[in-house]
């Protein structure tokens, strides 16, 4: 469990980091909290000649709630998400989800930027970002661009980010209404067997808007527009939930692993999603 040798770089600005990344080429990677990359390097499944550590870049840290918009620097840790009062007011689903990631030791170091940028289908934040319809800011040699979280994930570990780009921030409109992040896992520190992020708005007795995404049930996070549509306009009765769950299950494609076979995962995904919908509705 010892990685191969590598050079370590610690730039102090985003520009310097982008420049380094361009200079050093494909044998280099940026490192945030390191909780995905370092284990891969220790297993020698990833072999990097250069690591560009982003933690000295102050611009990448911090949480800003401005009007109805939440902006979070990529190097903000999960622990900081949990502790931030303004974020808790603006988007309590962030805290609910972050508390279900790994364990406190990991959360002190693991970052939201690393979590969303790595493209690991087991990570919790990508699905939540799709549920929130968040936007990622990418900075590369040609400047800055925005990519919607719902367009970002292509396959496991493959995203819309190019090798020369760094994900610097995420932003989203503070959600209104009810919320829930529901996750089944085998134990503390585990990836989800199935997890669901749900946001619901209520108008009178009816659901006026719904957003649903799921985690670790495909090789990318799964945003299910059909599931949301099934709830929107409904009285959120059993029939509507059944339709929404069926729509979501139609969008997932889980793989068998040590957590269990496909049939089990599909069943659990349905149960977890139903619970998330019911909890979100109770808060709407």
């Amino acid at each position, binding site marked *: 469990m010892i990685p191969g040798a590598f050079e370590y770089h610690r730039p102090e600005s985003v520009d310097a980091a982008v420049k380094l990344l361009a200079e050093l080429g494909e044998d280099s990677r940026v490192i945030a909290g390191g909780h995905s990359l370092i284990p891969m390097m220790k297993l020698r499944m990833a072999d990097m000649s250069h690591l560009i550590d982003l933690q000295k870049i102050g611009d990448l840290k911090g949480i800003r709630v401005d009007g109805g918009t939440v902006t979070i620097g990529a190097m903000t840790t999960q622990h900081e998400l949990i502790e931030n009062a303004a974020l808790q007011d603006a988007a309590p689903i962030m805290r609910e989800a972050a508390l279900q990631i790994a364990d406190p030791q990991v959360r002190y170091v693991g970052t939201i930027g690393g979590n969303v940028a790595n493209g690991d289908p087991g990570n919790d934040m990508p699905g939540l970002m799709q549920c929130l319809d968040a936007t990622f800011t990418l900075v590369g040699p040609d400047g800055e661009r925005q990519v919607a979280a719902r367009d970002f994930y292509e396959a496991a570990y493959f995203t819309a980010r190019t090798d020369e780009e760094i994900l610097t921030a995420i932003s989203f409109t503070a959600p209104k209404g009810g919320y829930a992040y529901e996750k089944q896992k*085998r*134990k503390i*520190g585990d990836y989800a067997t199935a997890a669901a992020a749900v946001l619901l708005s209520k108008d009178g007795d009816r659901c006026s808007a719904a957003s649903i995404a799921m985690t670790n049930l495909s090789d990318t996070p799964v945003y299910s527009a059909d599931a949301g549509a099934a709830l929107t306009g409904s009285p959120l009765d059993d029939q509507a939930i059944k339709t929404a769950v069926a729509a979501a299950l139609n969008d997932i494609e889980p793989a068998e692993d040590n957590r269990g076979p496909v049939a*089990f995962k599909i069943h*659990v995904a349905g149960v977890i999603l139903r619970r998330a919908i019911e909890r979100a509705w109770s808060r709407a």
Partner: protein
Amino acid sequence: MNEMSPPKSERSAALKGLGTARKRVEDVRFTQGKGNYVDDIQQPGMLFGDFVRSPYAHARVKSINAEAALALPGVVAVLTAKDLEPLSLHWMPTLAGDKQMVLADGKVLFQGQEVAFVVAEDRYIAADAVELVEVDYEELPVLVDPFKAELPDAPILREDIADDLEGAHGPRRHPNHIFTWEQGDKAATEAVIAEAPVVAEEMVYYHRTHPCPLETCGCVASMDKVNGKLTVWGTFQAPHVVRTVASLLSGIAEHNIRIISPDIGGGFGNKVGVYPGYVCSIVASIVTGKPVKWIEDRMENLMSTAFARDYWMKGKIAATSDGRITGLWCHTTADHGAFDACADPTKFPAGFMNICTGSYDIPTAYLAVDGIYTNKAPGGVAYRCSFRVTEAAYFIERMIEVLAIKLGMDAAELRAKNFIRKDQFPYHSALGWEYDSGDYHTAWDKALKAVDYDGLRREQAERLEAFKRGETRKLMGIGLTHFTEIVGAGPVKNCDILGMGMFDSCEIRIHPTGSAIARLGTISQGQGHATTFAQILATETGIPADDITIEEGDTDTAPYGLGTYGSRSTPVAGAATALAGRKIRAKAQMIAAYLLEVHDNDVEWDVDRFAVKGAPERFKTMKEIAYAAYNQAIPGVEPGLEAVSYYDPPNMTYPFGAYICVLDIDVDTGETVVRQFYALDDCGTRINPMIIEGQVHGGLTEALAIAMGQEIAYDEIGNVKTATLMDFFLPTAWETPHYTTDYTETPSPHHPIGAKGVGESPNVGGVPCFSNAVNDAFRAFGLTHTQMPHDHWRIWKTANDLGLHA
């Protein structure tokens, strides 16, 4: 003189002897990070070794090319089987009478097997060099299912012994067959079963798992070429046996080998055996003349060092129609992996599996165990249990439940009806053991009352009705277990390891000022020996426990002993300690009598002193006696105050316990919540209640892990699927339920202080208790048995198969 001495009760309390909840003296250094583990050891010029391991479960090794590795600056050597062969060290004997490759000799037999040993100036260079060693493999068909081992198309794994018809434990019927071990009366048992009105049958699988101590295995070997002395620091649960084995293998005289077990971060049976890493480090140190360190990483530990369990136990249990058990039959298929490296006493190739009649008076029984080779890591060690005792307890406690279902009887009642009665002890079991003492009915009644068993059953019935009405999706399970262990191996007449009788030892020196040091042949890996053995001595010698140093693990200073595993330290070394203490006291009596100017027989022991009979104000304390032993000539008595005792136990000890678990199961997700766990242990005389409680908590948590998810799983081509702590379940505080502990105290009649040992009871009793609770939750839907581990998807599958998701 001496009129002002405190009353007896105060003097007794000051000793912190037997029965005192004394805080662990070890924890001062452990909790401050001041432990000294093998990886903390640094030696001048020390090199570091690392293994090239096989990615395949079964393959021919066609060639090994180390040129690129040797060209890397800082690489000192790359050892292969060819280098070890001239020393006859490319293979080594196992504790089970088999032999094991130290480095791949022509082929590999399991994924993770040691192929080459790279020695470099530091561990980073060594890890890089491992990547540069080129091994050319030719893949061979893989055998992972022991039931396919003797089919016509099965690959032959052990070509080295393929033609040997006789193994270490009798005839072999196939090259992949290791032994057949039979106990009891086959014909009589089969006759009982054929005629019994009620017979329950089940295949009970106790899956493969791993002790997974937090500290992995490792060593530092240092050959001093000037004085010819080899010193090895390592993770050894049995340092003296390692010394003897090292001497026999290497030809180095035993007095020139010093084995030191420093602090050990958990063993649980994983650190009993000898691993290739130890042998390679020693050879590398001899070759290079420098100290060589080898430390496993977590994956190496899980993939290549000794696993536990992997017993397929087919059982039949016969009874009268009113629930009196008349016979028990068991055939076990034991998956031993590529080499038989079980750490059992020599004459017991399946350990004490023949304790499988459990706590019950079963007149007729038969057990057969077939050992089988597969392409998996070797091992089969006693993971927090005496040898195969947890397998036996799981088997009988599942069979009792299966029988209760067949009889339509309450499982608590069935147990009580068949317990060995108090007046039957010492009890001779049908499979050959003599149970020393027990009072099962008292313990059982206490346990049932403590949890309000009838109330729990009523609640369960109400829950079931609510479930059927669709008001809840959670079922309630009540798990029962009454286990009997057999620990404290063991009597030299039938227990040995590599010919070494399984006695143990204690040597005591009382210092002139009345404090003491005692050294034992055992070695603590977290059990708290420095605390508890001092308490035994405090009571025996009247010296406060706080004034007694306990030292273990250095073969140059400690008396010879067989080490710590199988709950043997208290039953064997604890007895030696008490008896050595009594020798001290016997000599002290003579000194006291001399000092008090009376006859030896005219003084009597009083907590911490000898007093003149009938004149308690005339006494000499042990402290005064110790001083006298060193500062004045006493006619007919040698100076000094020292004693040594080697103890050969007349019998094993038989701790027992009654456990009850209550859990809720979510049938839709397979999740479980243990909401109550009651554990009553009877370990005989209780030395330190606080340490007992800690041992019970730890053992129950390992039992929870095993029952609910922990496993070493292989895919169909022998890849280990659970080689990291992401997939190998080690519970944290979050997953660990609350435990309620309780006790009864039935001393062992043959142990000097009546103690039986406790460290492993909670694992032995805990696993069936958790598993029985899961099975019990589904009993109303027709389930008789479902296999462990009870992780989410397997529980979900059980519910699904029973139609509970329709």
